[in-house]
């Protein structure tokens, strides 16, 4: 029995390792920051912190790695010869160290240098347990990213997605690089439309475990879940209001598919907003919570509309083509990402809400569920590659594309989580 259990455990471990998502950059921006990241002395006993930082930054498409000579260990306390690093074509240099403490914890220190300006850009010291090594490396990458680009990094954020293996559906939570995934929910029935609460601790999603779609709110830390929209008929398409207390959902209880607001704790009465006698679905709040973008076939084809949450007529937003769905507003409220049908292909496009300029960002043909990174730079999406669902990401300007290789399952429904406070 014990042998069987051991074999089973080994199988599980092997399986989860093969399921890791690795994101590859297939295109890159024009000018990238050349960065040299020296190995952190002492990190061999923990994890390759410097390696994870390097991978994170390269994956963003905004940095490229400069080789560090193997001679002599350097730490954040070492004297830096800026001219020497400029000669190696490095714009930036990262030095750090890892020390094991008596209590079993570790200390990681690092410093960032601007070699062009001969400037010490400071750094941080962290105390961490062994299992926080990856999270620490992502925080260091975020620090470096922000110092050089002026915008917040998203390496410490998390993503949610659904993996289907046969009839098994798993709602998974992973780091933004697709690694370290854990299952929040495993079911024999479909799971879809995960949506992160603004606090990053809860997810709303649709589960068909009751032979019909029902909306749940799920607390990630303790696995507690509650059916918050379980009305007669279908319940789907949850979207969080920025206040974290209200959800927009789509219900069929009053006929058709209409948008309602409900309390995220399941209390109180539902409140219908809009309603056209046609399909209204995929609500998404603007960052100020005042406007809802949604998909509707009220004009005869599937198009994106918006309406003020407090009431009033809906305005049509998309006009080109006969199928524009899945609207997602960028965190700054300026861009709208959506899926458009273009000569039979379903591709992710962005619309500049001020200039009305549209741009198709992908060249794949079955894109689904776009999702902005919380800093607005990248858009995560699901697409089909060699007959299987995979994750992919594209920058909002279309210049950088990332692919995620096959993972041993059909991956779909990605959602990028918020910044962690």
């Amino acid at each position, binding site marked *: 029995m014990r042998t069987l259990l051991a074999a089973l455990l080994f199988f599980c471990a092997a399986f989860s390792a093969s399921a890791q998502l690795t994101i590859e950059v297939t295109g890159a921006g024009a000018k990238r920051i050349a960065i040299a990241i020296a190995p952190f002395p002492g990190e061999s006993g923990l994890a390759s912190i410097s390696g994870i930082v390097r991978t994170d930054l390269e994956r963003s498409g905004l940095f490229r790695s400069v080789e560090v000579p193997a001679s002599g260990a350097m730490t954040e306390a070492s004297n830096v010869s800026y001219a020497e690093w400029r000669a190696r074509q490095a714009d930036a240099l990262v030095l750090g160290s890892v020390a094991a403490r008596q209590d079993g914890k570790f200390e990681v220190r690092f410093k960032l240098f601007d070699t062009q300006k001969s400037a010490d850009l400071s750094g941080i010291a962290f105390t961490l347990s062994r299992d926080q090594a990856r999270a620490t490396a992502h925080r260091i990458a975020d620090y470096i990213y922000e110092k050089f680009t002026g915008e917040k990094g998203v390496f410490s954020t998390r993503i949610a997605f659904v993996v289907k293996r046969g009839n098994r559906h798993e709602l998974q939570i992973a780091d933004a690089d697709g690694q370290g995934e854990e299952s929040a929910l495993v079911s024999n029935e479909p799971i879809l439309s995960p949506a992160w609460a603004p606090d990053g601790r809860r997810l709303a999603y649709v589960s068909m475990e009751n032979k019909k779609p029902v909306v749940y709110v799920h607390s990630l830390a303790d696995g507690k879940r509650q059916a918050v929209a379980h009305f*007669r*008929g279908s319940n789907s398409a949850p979207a969080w209001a920025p206040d974290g207390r209200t959800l927009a959902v789509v219900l069929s209880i009053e006929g*058709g598919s209409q948008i309602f607001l409900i309390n995220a704790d399941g209390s109180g009465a539902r409140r219908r907003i809009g309603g056209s006698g046609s399909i*209204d679905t995929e609500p998404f709040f603007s960052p100020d919570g005042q406007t809802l973008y949604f998909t509707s076939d009220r004009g005869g084809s599937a198009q994106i509309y918006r309406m003020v949450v407090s009431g009033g007529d809906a305005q049509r937003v998309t006009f080109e083509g006969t199928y524009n769905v*899945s609207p997602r507003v960028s965190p700054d409220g300026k861009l709208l990402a959506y899926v458009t049908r273009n000569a039979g292909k379903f591709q992710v496009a962005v619309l500049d809400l001020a200039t009305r300029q549209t741009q198709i960002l992908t060249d794949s043909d079955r894109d*689904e569920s776009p999702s902005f990174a919380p800093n607005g730079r990248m858009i995560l999406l699901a697409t089909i590659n060699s007959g299987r669902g995979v994750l992919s990401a594209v920058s909002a300007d279309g210049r950088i594309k990332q692919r995620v290789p096959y993972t041993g399952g059909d991956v*779909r429904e990605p959602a990028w989580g918020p910044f962690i406070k």
Partner: protein
Amino acid sequence: MRVLILIVSAALAACSAAPTQEQSPAEVTDAQKTGTGPQTKPVPDRQVATVDLTGKGAARSPLTDPNSILSRRSIYYDYDKFDVKDQYRELVEAHARFLRDNPKFKMLIQGNTDERGSREYNIGLGQKRSDGVKRMLMLLGAREDQIESVSLGEEKPKAEGHDEAAWSQNRRSDILYEGEY
């Protein structure tokens, strides 16, 4: 299976109820009223109802009997269409009659779509299909509270392929009776 048992027990209940009505024949009352002739006593009913579980007899549930139209549960649609085609009219009429004649029975209609397009929008399209079947059943005499129409969108395909042959199997409404889901 649960439905079959339900039907069998309903049939049994019907059988045991029927003889009570026949137990007081009109002649007996008449005889007592007129006072003529000997007092008559009804012969106790010795009728025996046969329950045949071999699957060939009449006790088989019409909902699962392959010879009954009620065992047909799927309605298929053309691309981007939601109306029940003429070829499925008879099927819907039969289920409407069954619901009307069996007011305690309840039904779930699951609308489905092919895989193309947004998953959530497809839930909307599937809902349009199941709502259409529900409306038709109600027009034909079924009660609103007997029928729940829902949508599974593209999530439960009958055929796994990525061509029209598969898609045409997946654009459908499925009828399930209580106990079957």
